[in-house]
């Protein structure tokens, strides 16, 4: 539990960082991330990447689906360019996520460079947890809090990457399949729980349903097409409701 907004606990930046770091124990996503990155470490091992490479990827890429796509496309014999395109398309979601997180942290004194690390740390989990945690954090301490929460999650995922890499040879296929299924399940329910506005719920449901249709086009940017169409329809529903 976080201290109340008026608590003197929030006066120190370092302590705010600490509250963020500690908050990794207050979200089930930490557990899910740990298991997901066990799977990513194992996948990297089986695809003949080195441990250092797998750890560097977790630290520098910091997006689970992108790492899964990167390793599995390269492992299946794709060229660097093909892998880069596949990863670039899946990573487009990071753009609107960063855009929507920034206004929650900005104060009149905030410079853009203060937000670079927040932008790097932004991925699905952090994005979801921002909406949950930040209303309980004073605005001028939010950057420190997110730095803490983000670095806590990075520590968890680096540990899991190394553990998964070591365990790879002992991981039965059934368990490997179960671990890969964690990502869609956890993403789905954490987003569903955060969807309070009608526009978010419509965007989630339509986004799921429209992807298989967009995939038939086989354009290479199917996710972008279904995402923009579903998101815009959801926004239209919001506008219609606001006027009614």
């Amino acid at each position: 539990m976080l201290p109340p907004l008026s608590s003197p606990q929030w006066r120190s930046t370092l302590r705010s960082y600490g509250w963020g770091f500690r908050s990794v124990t207050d979200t089930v996503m930490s557990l899910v991330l740990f298991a997901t990155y066990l799977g990513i470490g194992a996948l990297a091992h089986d695809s003949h990447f080195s441990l250092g490479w797998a750890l560097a990827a977790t630290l520098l890429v910091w997006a689970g689906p992108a790492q899964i796509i990167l390793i599995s496309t390269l492992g299946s014999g794709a060229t660097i360019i093909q892998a880069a395109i596949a990863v670039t398309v899946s990573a487009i979601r990071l753009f609107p996520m960063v855009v929507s997180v920034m206004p929650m942290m900005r104060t009149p004194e905030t410079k853009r460079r203060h937000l670079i690390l927040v932008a790097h740390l932004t991925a699905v989990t952090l994005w979801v947890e921002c909406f949950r945690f930040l209303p309980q954090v004073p605005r001028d301490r939010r950057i420190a809090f997110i730095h803490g929460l983000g670095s806590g999650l990075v520590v968890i995922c680096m540990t899991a990457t190394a553990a998964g890499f070591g365990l790879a040879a002992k991981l039965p296929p059934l368990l490997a399949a179960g671990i890969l299924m964690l990502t869609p399940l956890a993403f789905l329910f954490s987003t569903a729980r955060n969807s309070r506005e009608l526009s978010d719920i419509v965007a989630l449901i339509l986004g799921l349903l429209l992807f298989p249709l967009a995939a038939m086009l086989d354009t290479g940017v199917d996710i972008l097409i279904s995402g923009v169409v579903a998101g815009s329809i959801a926004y239209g529903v919001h506008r219609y409701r606001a006027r009614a």
Partner: protein
Amino acid sequence: MSEFIGDWHALVILVVAGVIPNQIWRMLGLWFGGGIDDGSELLIWVRAVATAILAGVIAEIVVQPPGALASVPAMLRYASVVAGFLGFMAARKSIFAGVMSGEIVLLGGKWWLG
């Protein structure tokens, strides 16, 4: 060191196909997001698109599964999502209950099918 990271070729792949494709979107978001107000109409649209793209990533993993997940029949993968959703709703929107119900159906089903 070279054994820990791998050869320079592996490192180039990581930067070109891993780091740049992700960071480019984050830094564009940082550049663009600096000028948007909390609660503006544009932000509502941006958030809806982010949610829908994420939904697309979720659907892609289930519909076109990577690695070991491809060995699980499609119907079982869809059943896992449905069971997860029922568990999620039954436990008053608990992520943990949703993930566990989905996993139980996936692993149990696959084990039973052999």
